[in-house]
């Protein structure tokens, strides 16, 4: 255990201001630690990893880690990630998004990234609120809960991120929480080793903007809540429907290894290249054979033109 914190310091950018800007007890900090440990355990070098984030408290995490990082725009982290992975499939791409980031403004990018099965590891830091901008409700704020913009309780239903990812076609889907750092390390590790679009929902207490409006005395009470209401997904599935109320399943919901978009793309490229090469070889062979059918045209000089004509004759 002794190396854990030292290890984290090794991956932090010490020219940034520490302690980091997150509030006391903010779950985002725990995810940052988990991410670093998981990358380290996967044996990846700093240069092989790209961390891409959107805007929000969650988006700030990319600033603190010494990988290739891009702090992009609100809701669009996945678009940058898609481009990077397609351009250089060797890179391990990790996307950090808030719930507002990933599901409100960026909701369409999320479902399409999952459908495309682009080889990206997306982590959604779900604090059920817009943390950075002052506590407006998000599309994951639970019904009847309070926020700055829902002073009488949220009227709308919230998204279930796991269900959404499963329905959209992701390869790997997991849920974990800030109270479960070991599980978080484990699922990030599994995602990093899995091809295609891997999605992890990470429940992250935000007492500042969410907890204090929803009867949590302090951040600790929110962690206590995560501790008591969570259950391993396999146990959860064995529960009777009637006993599931208020229980939050955590763990790995889906894991499959369908080939990623960039792999399929590489396959098509290879096929086309092969066809092109075959064609070129055939043309070469045809050229090598003396053309018997026609007398070569009276010399006009340009060799290239002759070749073209040859081809035309064959076609």
């Amino acid at each position, binding site marked *: 255990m002794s190396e854990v914190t030292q290890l984290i310091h090794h991956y932090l950018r010490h020219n940034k201001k520490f302690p980091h800007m997150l509030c006391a007890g903010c779950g985002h900090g*725990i995810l940052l630690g988990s991410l670093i440990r998981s990358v380290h355990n996967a044996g990846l070098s700093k240069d092989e990893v790209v961390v891409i984030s959107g805007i929000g408290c969650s988006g700030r995490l990319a600033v603190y880690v010494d990988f290739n990082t891009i702090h992009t725009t609100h809701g669009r982290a996945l678009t940058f990630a898609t481009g990077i992975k397609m351009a250089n499939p060797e890179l391990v791409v990790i996307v950090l998004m808030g719930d507002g980031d990933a599901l409100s403004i960026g909701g369409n990018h999320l479902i399409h990234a999952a459908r495309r099965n682009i080889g990206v590891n997306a982590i959604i830091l779900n604090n059920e609120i817009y943390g950075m901008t002052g506590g407006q409700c998000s599309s994951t704020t639970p019904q009847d809960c309070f926020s700055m913009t829902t002073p009488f309780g949220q009227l709308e239903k919230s998204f279930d991120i796991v269900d959404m990812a499963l329905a959209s076609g992701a390869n790997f889907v997991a849920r974990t929480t800030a109270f479960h750092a070991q599980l978080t390390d484990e699922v990030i590790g599994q995602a990093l080793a899995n091809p295609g679009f891997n999605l992890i929902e990470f429940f992250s207490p935000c007492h500042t903007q969410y907890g204090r409006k929803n009867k949590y005395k302090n951040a600790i009470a929110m962690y206590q809540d995560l501790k008591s209401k969570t259950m391993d997904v396999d146990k959860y599935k064995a529960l009777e429907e009637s006993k599931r109320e208020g229980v939050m399943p955590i763990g790995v919901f889906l894991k499959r290894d369908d080939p990623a978009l960039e792999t399929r793309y590489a396959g098509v490229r290879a096929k086309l290249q092969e066809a092109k090469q075959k064609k070129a070889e055939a043309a070469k062979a045809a050229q090598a054979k003396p053309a018997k059918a026609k007398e070569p045209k009276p010399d006009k000089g340009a060799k290239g033109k002759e070749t073209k004509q040859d081809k035309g004759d064959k076609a």
Partner: protein
Amino acid sequence: MAATKKGLTTVAIYPDWCKGCGLCAAFCPKKVFEMDPVAGKARVVNEEECVNCGFCELHCPDFAIVLSPKNTDTDSSNNPTAKAKP
């Protein structure tokens, strides 16, 4: 994570990085920490009781806790936090 015997672990808090959230004190199974109400930070009060379960180090959101085995080199030159400071 393996060691579970008492008295084998040093528990250190870097007060500069601790934000006083209280998670370590609330969840340590052995009550190793106490919150200092004046400083608004955690402090180690029961180091001998620590069973090296690792919870505090993994869950401190500010990387302010370091667990290390006793009687090893805890020299500050080995300590990246100390190095990081100007």
